[in-house]
């Protein structure tokens, strides 16, 4: 069942990210729903699930981008793994704290990306921070926080986390 849900998430997110999100991008920047999903999966289901889903989702999303396959997979896999480790240490997580955490994680992943991929001379570090990393991190935090808030109000997150990690 779990594998089926993960498969659905991976297969569903790629078209949403490449077909629908460009129409609702803010100043040409769209949120990385893959990163948000991997974070939430890692947090709720543990580091192994986060790592595997992150690797697969990163790879699948890189297939439809000019980004090389390995960097995308490794970055998302790492994010999923770290989210799983953090989830193990946390007892209670409010949506605001999760949004702030997502902001930090998205910023770190965004800052690591220019080192992992070969960008042109025009795309320097400041360009990356102001044009891509910070706006994307804000969008990721807002969307991730909203999704977690919905889950938080409708589901028993602690129970879900303990059941998923078993």
């Amino acid at each position, binding site marked *: 069942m779990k594998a089926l849900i993960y498969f659905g998430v991976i297969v569903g997110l790629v078209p949403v990210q490449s*077909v629908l999100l460009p129409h609702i991008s803010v100043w040409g920047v769209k949120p990385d729903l893959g990163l948000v999903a991997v974070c939430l999966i890692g947090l709720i289901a543990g580091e192994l699930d986060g790592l595997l889903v992150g690797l697969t989702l990163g790879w699948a999303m890189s297939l439809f981008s000019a980004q090389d396959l390995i960097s995308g997979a490794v970055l998302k896999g790492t994010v999923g793994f770290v989210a799983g480790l953090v989830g193990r240490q946390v007892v209670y997580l409010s949506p605001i704290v999760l949004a702030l955490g997502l902001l930090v994680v998205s910023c770190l992943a965004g800052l690591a990306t220019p080192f992992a991929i070969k960008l042109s001379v025009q795309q320097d570090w400041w360009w990356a921070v102001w044009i891509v990393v910070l706006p994307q991190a804000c969008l990721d935090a807002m969307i991730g926080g909203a999704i977690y808030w919905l889950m938080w109000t409708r589901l028993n997150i602690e129970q879900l986390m303990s059941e998923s990690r078993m």
Partner: protein
Amino acid sequence: MRMVNLRASYSARRVALVLAVILVLGFLLLPGQLQSVFQQVGSPFGWIISWPLQAVAGIHGRIADIWGRYVALQGVEEENQQLKRELDLLKEQNGQLREASVATERLSALLEFKKQVLPTSVAAQVIGRDTGNWYKTIILNKGTSDGLQSDQGVITPAGVVGRVVKTTASTAVVLLVTDPNNAIAGLIQRTRDEGIVEGTTQGQARLKYIPLLSNARPGDHVVTSGLVGGFPRGIPIGTITRIDKEEEALFQSAELSPEVDPNRVEEVLVIRSSSFPTEGERLVVPKPKP
């Protein structure tokens, strides 16, 4: 008694007759003065009369309004709804027809262009954009099963769109000409100076390595040079909007406005052929007779 009554009546008649004659004569002899006298006398009278007149007129108006709006229009509500439904239907049909007309026009131009210029090209539809924010790419609905592979040029009848950088069996990722990581060999059509076209972070393009002695100027058209990359010679890339000359620099560069707006591209042609016809072959130069 009877005589007295007759006399009184007779005198009254005479007085009335005299007054009438005076009035008629007055009307005939002094029309202007009498008019103004009557006007002045009539003003307050008319003001008094105007109150009930307005009241009656108001009531009449209200009644006519009520009649016109509610009583006489009992069937109009239904008719209005029917007309609204018809209007919606016609609007929808009009939109569909307009879209079909535009699509037909676009596809006809693409087909004609394909027949004339590049018989080995493959037509593809744009189905998506880059999944990330770092590159400007489009996703096509054709892949390796249709003969697409990396480094093939992608164009529309208007000009260069980009080049294929990644393929799957059924899709291909095209790095757009406006991406800073793209580089296409370009040629200024008027001066024949060559350079490299690359994208900018502002979504435009730039022609680099133009010789210092070149007299290129804004308005000049830049086309593909056909030397390297997946493009034949002469496909439009953009128009020069500004020349940048830096002191002590070995080359000058130019800002380009791309011919194709990559954000609005819907159908493209992918150039499959690796060897392109030369200018002479394209113009079908007659072979010398033995």
